[in-house]
């Protein structure tokens, strides 16, 4: 089971990341260097770095797993993650760069001259950052579990140590180049296996893709059960079994299994004839009310209100990307607003290219390796697919490439997040310099590692979707209205951030603890963005209109700074009219 090339590939990616990070130590000396790699990064490089940082465990493993287990509706995640950057381009890219803030708390304080709002946003940066770190840690846990057979916690702790140490040593300076490289690594690591496996699969039956069809085995298939699982059969099936099935020891015997739940012990081998229904483990079973080809996402165990849940994900991903704490800092590395726009457009192109491939891998799984419906965790499907479709050395090498890409995803996203979280902690909570930043990186990494230990029952896509929902219901209205609406007051902004972010967090925590699993409750709490984003916008607007007296000072100067093209700003500066921050 031990995949030696995969282990070597993971080690290489990790070492490379640490090595470049260590090189950064010599360059990074001032706090500014640590937070933002000096400002001259050309758009192409910057776009690759942004994409490298953005494509996380959820994109690399989560989306394909969700498509396989929940159906084609999960494609909305990849559409939303990409369209989120289009929204960012349209509404905030250039003004935000021109404003010159490189964290959301900086923007809040600079735009509204309010310490209170700064503290509120710092709190939310920590919440979103940690929330987003959890799925990365989970990804590392399940990857090492699958490749090395180590317990779940080993991968979590390993990633926690590597990332915390790397950030504590080098900060962003090292990370910029690593992340640019990691985009291309991730694209190759998902694109090459997808194309090779697609070519190897050739033309065949697309029966499992046919609308409403239950997945069936296209040819006689032997399923080896690695760890004991419960599975469900859609219709009665005849199987040849060696090992323990339903607590009965069988030795190469043919049994007739009725439809419903069965239990296979670890080590059992089941031979399914062509045309037999594919058994699915508990975590891979869709809600009964939906079909695999449904274009909707579902919430809750009964799959209630699919349209509402789908719009929830669309709103969260579209408006969440611009509020992610680790993304804003990257825009500061553009030389000017026009470059920020070009960078964002390139990001949209790079992301669109990447997101073609998870869908390909998911479709291949459904068509050619439906036995993966027996996996315990949908998120491990992408990792397991190459060796199933291509036995022997080639499959092992492709598997190694996928594992390396997955690790690149965990490393790059968690590095970016940890820089934001540690920056917020050291700058706003502990008020220190470089030394404090290093300490905070280690503290933040430790907290994330510990918090990630109990989350392995939630799918990566869901966890990341929730981080987006919180960002969309708090920072999105703050940034969008802050940039475009002169009458937004600090009172309104604070109220909106607290009400929207708070409501969203409460809904998610309630869902995590199983408050509502059916009907409207499940849909509204499980995909809260559909109501918390409009709520945050309305609270901000209404409160601002009620508190007109507290309009921040120098609003016109702020507007000028955010919207005036750079050429003019440079000239106004030279003319002795500094538009400095209030």
């Amino acid at each position, binding site marked *: 089971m031990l995949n030696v090339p995969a282990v070597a590939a993971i080690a290489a990616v990790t070492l490379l990341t640490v090595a470049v990070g260590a090189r950064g130590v010599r360059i990074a000396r001032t706090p500014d260097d640590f937070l933002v790699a000096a400002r001259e990064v050309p758009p192409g490089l910057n776009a690759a770095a942004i994409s490298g940082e953005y494509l996380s465990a959820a994109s690399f493993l989560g989306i394909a797993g969700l498509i396989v287990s929940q159906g*084609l*509706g999960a*494609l*909305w995640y*990849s*559409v939303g993650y*990409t*369209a989120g950057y*289009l*929204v960012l*381009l*349209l*509404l905030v890219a*250039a003004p935000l760069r021109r404003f010159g803030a490189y964290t959301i708390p900086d923007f809040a304080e600079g735009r509204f001259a309010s310490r209170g709002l700064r503290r509120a946003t710092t709190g939310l940066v920590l919440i979103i950052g940690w929330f987003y770190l959890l799925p990365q840690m989970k990804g590392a846990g399940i990857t090492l579990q699958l490749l090395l057979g180590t317990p779940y916690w080993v991968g979590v702790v390993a990633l926690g140590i590597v990332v915390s140490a790397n950030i504590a040593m080098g900060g962003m300076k090292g990370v910029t180049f690593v992340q640019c490289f990691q985009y291309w690594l991730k694209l190759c690591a998902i694109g090459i296996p997808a194309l090779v496996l697609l070519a190897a699969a050739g033309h065949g039956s*697309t029966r499992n*893709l*046919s*609308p409403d069809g239950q997945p069936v085995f296209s040819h006689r298939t032997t399923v080896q059960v690695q760890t004991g699982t419960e599975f469900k059969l859609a219709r009665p099936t005849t199987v040849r079994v060696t090992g323990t099935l339903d607590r009965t020891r069988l030795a190469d015997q043919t049994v007739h299994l009725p439809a419903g739940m069965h239990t296979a012990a670890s080590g059992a081998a089941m031979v399914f004839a062509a045309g037999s229904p594919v058994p699915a483990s508990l975590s891979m079973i869709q809600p009964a009310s939906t079909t695999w*080809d*449904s*274009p*909707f996402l579902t919430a809750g165990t009964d799959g209630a209100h699919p*349209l509402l849940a*789908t*719009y929830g994900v*669309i709103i969260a991903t*579209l408006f969440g990307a611009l509020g992610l704490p680790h993304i804003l800092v990257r825009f500061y590395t553009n030389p000017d607003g*026009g470059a920020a*726009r*070009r960078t*964002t*457009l390139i990001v*949209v*192109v790079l992301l*669109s290219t990447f*997101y*073609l491939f998870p*869908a*390909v891998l998911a*479709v291949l799984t459904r068509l050619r390796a439906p036995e993966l419906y027996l996996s315990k965790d949908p998120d491990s499907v992408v990792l397991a697919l190459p060796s199933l479709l291509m036995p022997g050395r080639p499959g092992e090498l492709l598997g190694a490439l996928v594992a390396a890409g997955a690790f690149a995803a965990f490393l790059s996203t968690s590095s970016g997040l940890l820089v934001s979280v540690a920056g917020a902690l050291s700058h706003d909570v502990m008020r220190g310099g470089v030394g404090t930043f290093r300490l905070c990186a280690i503290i933040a990494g430790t907290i994330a590692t510990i918090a990630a230990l109990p989350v392995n029952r939630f799918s990566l896509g869901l966890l990341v979707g929730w981080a987006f929902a919180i960002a969309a219901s708090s920072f999105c209205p703050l940034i969008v209205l802050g940039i*475009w609406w002169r009458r937004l007051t600090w009172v309104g902004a604070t109220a909106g951030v607290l009400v929207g972010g708070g409501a969203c967090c409460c809904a998610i925590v309630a869902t995590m603890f199983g408050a509502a699993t059916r009907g409207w409750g499940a849909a509204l709490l499980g995909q809260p963005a559909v109501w918390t984003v409009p709520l945050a916008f309305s609270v901000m607007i209404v409160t601002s209109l009620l508190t007109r007296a507290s309009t921040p000072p120098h609003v*016109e*100067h702020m*507007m*000028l700074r955010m*919207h*005036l*093209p750079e*050429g*003019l700003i440079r*000239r*106004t500066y*030279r*003319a*002795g*009219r500094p538009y400095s921050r209030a």
Partner: protein
Amino acid sequence: MTPPADHGAAAQASAAAKHGATAEHGAAAEHGATAGQDATAGHGTPGENGAPRRKVVVWQHDQARLQHDVIGLGDVQSDTVYGRLLVRSLTRAQLGLSLMCLAIALAVIASLPLIMALLPSARKVTVAGLPLTLVILGAGIFPVLMAVGWFYNRQASQLEARFIDLVDPVGRRLDA
């Protein structure tokens, strides 16, 4: 045209001081025609014939003064009523463009689930054996997103270039 109280006057004074040396090109080019006759006398001393005349400043042109003759960069710099109007028109145009592109993108994205919900038969359509949902959400929608982004980028750059031309035409530009 009175600049509001804050830093208007100081800014103009320092602007004049800083640009005394570089003002020649723009000033000469623009006022060459109107002040041609006077300028031949040397450095344009007004009122040689005794009659009260329009004051024409040629070489030692007061930069701030020039900019106030025409609404433009000077107003933006000095935050005059006109300057505010100019900036407001710029932000309005930028926001209008952004919202238009956002509306196009949202119309494409948000209408898909609705269409699929209202026309269940659309879900059964297959393209080359692949479900329509997979074809649209897996690949077809991305070029649309890129196209909207590309269109916005081009329009936004043009909009900014036009604004620069409006408030600070090349002919009057100080550092041209």
